[in-house]
């Protein structure tokens, strides 16, 4: 068994070090490997019986074993990552400042870590955390908020004045990171009767989000329902949320942007950068996809300065 463990580890090390997925985040790499196994299952089953692979195990057991080892690795790596973000990159005191009520920061941190651990352990929710991982890994919110607050244009006005959240840029960074971390709670099956990604109609989506926000506030009562709603509603297009929810509108765009994010994608000569291109196309289809036109226009303008 020890030899099989070692071989499985080596097999996964080999796959994870392959150039096409080397730069992916653990969640992205896991998705790639699962897709690879799914699409090549018959060939893999034959290959795995060969002496150089796993001749002692039936192929189906081998695959199940590989997948469980992979999952364990990815969950561990992701939890460590999010733990680090929660403990060292977010200032939870901002919640006290925004809602003007006392909060126990340590308790919120602990509950956030527990919740994220649960969410990451769930395969469906984990897969939806991929854009969240990239946004946080790239410190994208830090860069975007700094630039937006520097410009003091449309998005700043929406975030600060329309949402009535009068805080400074570094505080807004923490605030948005908290919302972002909670945003995929809507896709966590044990706490939702139906998860968001399976919703087919707009009414259903809104319903799921409303319920999910209520469930979330019950899980972490230290966080106000407004923040829970802002976090969960960042999955909804502009036309399905209220006008004051500027943070949700911004996060909705960022989540979509990073859902299509390709790590390590180099800028091609003659082409705009991947960011500029994405926002350039997004501003043209903003209405169809539910992006806030004003925000996406501004992100397009600052796209080349973000990195």
């Amino acid at each position, binding site marked *: 068994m020890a030899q099989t463990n070692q*071989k499985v580890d*080596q*097999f996964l090390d*080999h*796959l994870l070090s*392959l150039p*096409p*997925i080397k730069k992916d985040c653990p969640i992205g790499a896991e*998705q*790639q*490997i699962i*897709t*690879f196994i799914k*699409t*090549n299952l018959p*060939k*893999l089953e034959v*290959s795995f019986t060969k002496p*150089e*692979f796993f001749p002692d195990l039936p192929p189906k057991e081998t695959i199940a074993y590989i997948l469980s080892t992979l999952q364990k690795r990815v969950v561990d790596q992701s939890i460590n990552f999010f733990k680090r973000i929660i403990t060292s990159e977010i200032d939870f005191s901002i919640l006290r400042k925004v809602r003007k009520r006392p909060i126990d920061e340590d308790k919120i941190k602990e509950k956030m870590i527990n919740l994220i651990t649960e969410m990451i352990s769930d395969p469906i929710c984990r897969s939806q955390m991929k854009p969240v991982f990239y946004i946080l890994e790239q410190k994208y919110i830090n860069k975007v908020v700094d630039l937006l607050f520097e410009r003091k244009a449309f998005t700043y006005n929406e975030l600060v004045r329309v949402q009535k959240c009068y805080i400074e840029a570094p505080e807004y960074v923490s605030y948005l990171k908290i919302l972002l971390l909670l945003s995929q709670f809507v896709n966590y099956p044990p706490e939702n009767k139906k998860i968001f990604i399976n919703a087919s109609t707009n009414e259903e989506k809104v319903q799921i989000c409303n319920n999910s926000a209520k469930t979330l506030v019950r899980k972490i009562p230290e966080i106000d329902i407004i923040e829970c709603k802002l976090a969960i509603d960042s999955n909804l297009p502009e036309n399905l949320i209220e006008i004051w929810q500027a943070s949700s509108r911004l996060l909705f765009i960022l989540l979509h942007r990073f859902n*299509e994010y390709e790590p390590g994608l180099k800028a*091609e*000569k*003659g*082409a*705009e950068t*991947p960011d*500029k*291109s*994405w926002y*350039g*196309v997004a501003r*043209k*289809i903003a209405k*169809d996809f539910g992006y806030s036109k004003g925000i996406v226009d501004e992100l397009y303008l600052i796209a080349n300065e973000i990195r």
Partner: protein
Amino acid sequence: MSKKNKSNILLKILEGFINLVIFISILQILFEDIALIKGFDPKLKIILMFIGFGIDLIFTIEFIARSILSTKNRGFIAYFFYQYGWIDFLCSIPLLIMNSLPSFILFLTTKTLYKSTVGFIKIIRIIRAIRITRILRILRVLKILKNLQNANSKMAQNHLSQILVIFIFTLLISLIGYSFISDFSVNKMIEKQVQTYQLVFLGYNQIINDFHVNSKYDELHNFLSKIKSSFLVDPKVLSVEMINLPSQFKLQDNLLYKIDNFDHIINNFSNYQLDIGFFRLIFSTQYFENLKTSVELLIFISIILGSILFIFIYLRSFVTRISDIIYIIFKGIKHKDYFLMVKIPENYKDEEIFEFAKFYNDIYLPAKRKQYQKTEQTSKISIDDLMNMDL
């Protein structure tokens, strides 16, 4: 290694070799002309002659090989007229048959250098410079143009080749035209120089005759001393010898004038001997040869510098303003998950290609994005990635 891979490697080695030969041929032409002007050691000239022969032989073999191969592909006509086969031809067979082969045979049989290259053939050597366009590939390899993504695009290379051919031929036609103007021909210039010397020395002859008739031998000696100093101011005069002098003159040494490095100049540069009455004049014609060679060298250097500037300035401009844009748009049309927009420089946005790019950015890509559904996810890993795995 598969057979196809092997032949690809072989093809790349051959291409690299030919590019190297093109580069050497440019240096060879340059050195050959400089050797002529500067009167380099004959041994060096022999080496350059051998190199020239080798280059012409290699280009001839290459042309024949390409011609044979072309019959298996798109045909000889296509190769000759549309893939610059005619340049390959001009740079090979005529030069080999009319220039380097006769020089080579002459040297092998008589151990002397074939000096007078036919003017037109000499000019045609410069056509070799056109093949500099092939060096584009070397530049790509050297990553000199690393900022230009599509510097190796066929379209960019063909356009640049066409422009270089026009540029080089314009200069060559000017050079050929120049060589046809008789006043600028070396022979005509020598002829004029001979006339000048004849006039001067006929005058000297007349004076010597007068001294002879009047038996003024002392004055004659003084006169000869005086004219001797006048030769110093004309660097073309190499030596002046007195011939057919009447016996009464009793000159100790018939050699009136001889420059210091006479032997070196006689051996390494061209010269002309002229007998005018009492005088035998040897003067250097190198000055006129140099004028001619300098013009050719100037044209050649202009071609090389012009070509380099075209490669760095025009190619850059072509690639960034045409082929990069086409490449991005083509990729966007071909690949369903490619959504990069074309970068449109503010200064050129009115150009048709950028108007087309604007349409692609503003209409095509958003429409494609609306249609695009990320359906069945495809993995970036393939089964081949497991093949070289060592567990």
